[in-house]
């Protein structure tokens, strides 16, 4: 069982950072809801609040990790220009997609949308984490701030969902490949 270096980094970007970020959303929404509840019997304890702070900070790290690894590690491999005369585009995903009108849309719509909308997620979730940490239990007294935090969390989820879905589909059509091959496990007969 083996993977190339580029495949490992792409998996780290999409599954490691992006996947975990998307998975964390349900917890974030419940966290916001619990902190915002006025009923003291169900509002979180000091320890739970501390945990939620760490949870939001982790989400922020995942969000920035996803876009930065995507833009500065994976994307350069995706958009690399093949040398003159090359007709095998296996290691040039963008060229491979654009070489046929049946696949060009995956770049012209999918990648073009993904590469910009993805950045909404870290910006939005950083704001939400800041508001959550700064206001804590006082957030229950700021109805409009709560509304905005909730709306931005939903937008961050949608943006990450669009980017993640197109990322997975594009990587299926024209996978990022190449680099040193790393053996993950010895083959057994």
């Amino acid at each position, binding site marked *: 069982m083996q993977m190339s270096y580029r495949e490992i980094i792409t998996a780290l970007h999409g599954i490691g950072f992006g996947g975990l970020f998307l998975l964390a959303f349900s917890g974030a929404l419940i966290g916001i809801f619990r902190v915002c509840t*006025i009923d003291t019997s169900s509002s979180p304890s000091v320890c739970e609040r501390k945990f939620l702070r760490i949870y939001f900070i982790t989400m922020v790290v995942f969000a920035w990790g996803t*876009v930065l690894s995507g*833009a*500065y590690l994976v*994307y*350069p491999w995706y*958009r*690399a220009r093949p040398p003159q005369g090359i007709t095998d585009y296996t290691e040039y995903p963008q060229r491979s997609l654009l070489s046929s009108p049946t696949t060009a849309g995956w770049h*012209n*719509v999918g990648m*073009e*949308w993904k*590469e*910009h*909308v993805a*950045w*909404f997620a870290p*910006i*939005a979730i*950083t*704001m939400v984490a*800041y*508001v959550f940490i*700064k*206001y804590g239990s*006082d957030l229950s*007294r*700021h*109805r*409009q*701030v709560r*509304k*905005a*935090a909730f*709306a*931005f969390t939903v*937008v961050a989820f949608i*943006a990450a969902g669009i980017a993640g879905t197109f990322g997975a589909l594009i990587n299926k059509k024209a996978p990022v490949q190449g680099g040193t091959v790393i053996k993950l496990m010895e083959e057994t007969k």
Partner: protein
Amino acid sequence: MNPDLPENQPEPEIPNGAAAAAILSAGVGCLCVSLFGLLGDAFPTLSHLFNFYKPTGPLSGVTTTAIIIWLILWAVLSRSWKGRSLSMGRINIIAFLLLGVGLLLSFPPFGDLLQGK
């Protein structure tokens, strides 16, 4: 007196100025990403200027510029609105509008339509 607070609720301990600054600047930051992306696509000179890091291309400049504007605006608004209670309803409407327009502009077929492609 906080205008957004229901009658039976106690006054907040922290004024909403800091939150308003964070919310509005996040809306601006999101719009900037889409707007700069669209402008870079429409004008080759701008696209060239946005090429901060060659392997990533214009995307590096588009996002870096948007992030810098977002963070500077956040810092400036935070300072101006520190300790103040603002009408959050209006701030939210503006932030949601910026976010909505940003989402729309980020969709390539809409950007192409604006450019007449």
